[in-house]
Structure formats: structure tokens, C-alpha cells
């Protein structure tokens, strides 16, 4: 079974996994980060409390988080097709993955930002900082270590979701593991795949922790 095509497939699987995971994470952050910031900003104890907008956003985020991934996947098919012209393959999977991960990211970001010391927020307010400046120059930089740690969590969680890419012929290591390990019962391929997955997770998680610690100036 260790022929060239298997190796080829595993190699491609690693590539696809990285592609889907990082792509989705990127877009999930592009959407989720601002949402998380808005959640913190509009909250009752935020820098621009706005009960109505907060509630609306809160519900939207929860709503997206409530959809089982497969349901979400078909619900956004028309959108995916409109956007990419296809609903197949790793690129197409990035769309539902992003939509599914963005509210998750928003919640993680919300959690990180809520840990920023009120004192420094007040200090910047006393200097006449605008909401945008507080977000950009205080909340995000001060929460940086926590944001990075949570980003590692987001990446590994999204990586987990890429296993479901098989539903739409997406590919990737998770899909390989399921196809061979689950459907075909070729457990040696599954094993290799899982080991590769472990390595990938280890790299992301390790990197996240390392960067977070290196960039944390509090200790």
C-alpha cells in the first residue's frame, strides 16, 4: 500500500489540510475579529454601549453557531457557487468553514478583549482616544497574548472541522482518515494520516504558545 500514489495522496492531503485550515482561519478572523470587537464595544460595560446593536449582533453570532456544520454547508451552497463558481474541492469548503468558524472566533476574541485591564482603557479615554483608537491601540495590543493563544485554539478547531470536507469532496487529511479508516477500514493509512494530523496540530499549537509567550511583556 505504500506505493507512490498513496504517498502522493498523503502529501496532497497535508497540503489541502493546511490550505483549508489556514484559509478558513484567515477569513474567519477577517469576519470574526471585527465581530468580537463590536461585541465588546457595544456591551453594557463596553466603550460604546449600545444595547440594541449588541443584542442583534449577539443573536446573529449565536444563530450561526447553532447550525450543525452539514446543514450550514448546504445552506450556503448557493452562496459558495455564486462566489467561486463551484461547490467542490478544498476552496469551496473554505466558505462554509469560514462561516461556521467566524462566530466561534468572534466569541474567542470577545473573551480575550474582556480581559484587558479597565485602567488602561480609562487612561486612553482620558487622553481623548476615539473608540477606533482604543480598539486598535489598546484593546488589541494589550490582549495580544490571549488573542494569539486563542488563535491557536481556533486553528486546531477549524482543522478538526476540515475532516468534514469529505462531505463535499474537499479532501485533506481528515477526509483521508475517515475514508480509509472509517469507510474502507484500511487502518494503516488512517494511522499515518492521524500522525500527520498530530504533527500539524502540534506545530500550530506550539507556535501559538511560543509566540504568545514571546510577545507577552507582562512577565
Amino acid at each position, binding site marked *: 500500500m505504500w506505493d507512490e500514489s498513496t504517498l502522493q495522496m498523503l502529501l496532497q492531503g497535508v497540503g489541502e489540510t493546511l490550505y483549508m485550515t489556514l484559509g478558513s482561519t484567515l477569513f474567519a478572523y477577517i469576519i470574526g475579529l471585527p465581530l468580537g470587537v463590536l461585541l465588546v464595544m457595544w456591551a453594557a460595560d463596553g466603550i460604546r454601549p449600545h444595547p440594541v446593536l449588541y443584542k442583534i449582533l449577539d443573536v446573529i453570532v449565536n444563530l450561526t453557531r447553532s447550525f450543525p456544520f452539514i446543514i450550514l454547508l448546504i445552506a450556503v451552497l448557493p452562496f459558495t457557487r455564486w462566489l467561486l463558481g463551484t461547490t467542490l474541492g478544498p476552496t469551496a469548503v473554505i466558505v462554509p468553514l469560514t462561516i461556521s468558524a467566524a462566530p466561534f472566533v468572534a466569541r474567542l476574541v470577545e473573551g480575550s478583549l474582556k480581559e484587558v485591564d479597565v485602567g488602561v482603557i*480609562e*487612561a486612553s*479615554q*482620558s487622553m*481623548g482616544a476615539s473608540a477606533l483608537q482604543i480598539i486598535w*491601540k489598546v484593546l488589541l495590543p494589550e490582549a*495580544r497574548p490571549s488573542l494569539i493563544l486563542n488563535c491557536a485554539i481556533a486553528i486546531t478547531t477549524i482543522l478538526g472541522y476540515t475532516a468534514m470536507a469529505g462531505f463535499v469532496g474537499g479532501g485533506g487529511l481528515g477526509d483521508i482518515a475517515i475514508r480509509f479508516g472509517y469507510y474502507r477500514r484500511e487502518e494503516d493509512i488512517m494511522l499515518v494520516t492521524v500522525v500527520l494530523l498530530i504533527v500539524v496540530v502540534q506545530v500550530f499549537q506550539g507556535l501559538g504558545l511560543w509566540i504568545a509567550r514571546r510577545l507577552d*511583556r507582562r*512577565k
Partner: protein
Amino acid sequence: MERKPIIEIRSLSKTFRGKNAEVHALQDINLKIEQGDIFGIIGMSGAGKSTLVRCMNMLEIPTEGTVLFDGMDLSKLNRKQLREARRSMGMIFQQFNLLMQRTAEANICFPLEIAGVDKATAKKRAKELLELVGLSDKAKSYPSQLSGGQKQRIAIARALATNPKVLLCDEATSALDPNTTSSILALLKDINRRLGITIVIITHEMRVIEEICNRVAIISESKIAECGDVTEIFSHPKTPAAQHLVFPEGKHTTETFTGKHAIRIVFNGSSSFEPVIANMVLEYKSPVNILFADTKNMDGKAFGQIVIQLPEDESLADKMQRYLHMRGLTVEEVSGNVG
């Protein structure tokens, strides 16, 4: 220096509402701070000083009353206007509130960035200020690598960075040794003189008030007990609260002196440095003992207090007292209950 109130506080109250209890941190405060003032605020721990200063830039929204800054009612301003107003007020916090993820230098640049000053100019200014507070070598250190006093100095430098019209200082020198305190106070006095910056300073150190303030308010239990010129209040504290603060040693010394004809001579700057006690000794040919002395030479005038013990002889003691009175000095018998 033109004198108009830059900060005016009208019947301001602040109540913190907790789950069970209410804390009336400030009650019916009225205050005028003129442009160019160095305005001291003193009071016991928990009296409401920090809350008052935080109301001045609306970090704390007053429960009642108004705060006028430069004639504008701060509570009536829209967000943008409030931001503008705040940009002309620098603030030094009791807990410093430095950005933990920025270097000392970048912390000083922070208000400049907010005000839209370009990077290069900001860096140059930060460098100047670091020098001014004696921390040039710590430019690249993060707050967690600084000592308490160093953090405080960075906080001071940060507040000064934008050359604000008003500087609100919540215990700006509490973590500093006397020498550093002196140089910071000299710095504050200098920018006050040169740039006409108004300074509001909360402090526990009477020497800070003496050294640089021209006006002082004494807050006691959420209310203003006394407010006026430093020389006046420090020589004639009227309310018990003020006496307590201005002569904290009073009670202590009193115990030792009572029943021995001890009197306190207060120098409030009106008598210049003539040898008044020595002259009196010579005049009446009788020694007096200096029990306690705390005097200072400010701008060539004498300030402070001396407690002396007059001779046993009643009539002589009387005469001496009158002699001092005639010299324009305030003389009080030190008895049990004088603060």
C-alpha cells in the same frame, strides 16, 4: 497670566450604587480652578479626591451637578467634543495605568499617536521627556521591568507629552524619593510658569502643596472642608479637618508640651527672615526652648511653625507673647485639643 476659571465645578455629587449599599463619594462640591493655578487637593484616604479628579474629565460621570471646562459643560458635549476637551487634559493615575505591552518610550508616544502626531515627532518628544524624568536608559524597557517609581515617572512623562492645558495628577509623586519628587515638582512648576499650564494635584505630602501649589482644597468625608490660598489655609486652618491635615504632628507634640507654657508660632510668610525669636530672647534676657520646629524659607519669606517653651514666669511669658504678636506673627497656646 490671565485668570479665569478653566475648571469650574458646580454642586457636584457622585454616588456609587452597589448591590446593598450606596457610597456617597462626593457631595455638593463647588470649586473653581483658575487658569495657571497649581491647585492642590488634600484629604484623608477615601475622602473622595480621586473621584473628584476623575469627574473633571468625565471618567466618572457625576450623579448630579456640572463640570465646566474652559466654559463648556462637559456633560453637554458630544463624543467628539468631549474627546477634544480630554485631549487638552493630561492625567496621571494613582495606579499609573501604563500599557503593559508597550515600552516606556511607546507609552509616552501613546497620547501623541492619539492626538495624531507623526511618529518621528512623537519619538523625539518621548526622548526629551524620558530625559526630563531621568529614564533615558529605560526607553526600551516594558513597565513590568520598571520599579514603582520608574513607572510613575513614565506616567508623568506620558501625561506631559501632549503639552495639555490642564494636568490632573493623582498622587504624582507618591512612589518617588524626596530628591526625585523635588525634581518632578520643579519640573511641574517650571511648565506651569513657562506655559501657563494649570495643574491639579492630589497629594498626601504637605511639602508638595507647600512647594508648588498656590491654591488648595481640603476634602473631608466627601465634602470640601476648606478651599483657598495655600499660605492662608496652611497658616490658619479653620476646620478641624484642615487642622488635622496641616498639623498632623500637632497632637503628638502637644502631649509633650502641655502645662509648660508651650506656644506655637506660625510663620505665614508675612514676617521675613529677621531673627525674631533671638531678638525676643535678647529683649527679655530669658531663654526659651525650641520644642519643635518646622520652618522653611520660601521665596525669602518664612513659613511653618515653631513650638517654643516660654519661661515659667507668667508675666514674662505674657510679655513675650505680646512681643511676638506685635511682630505680626500668629501665636497660639498649645493646649490639649489643638490639632
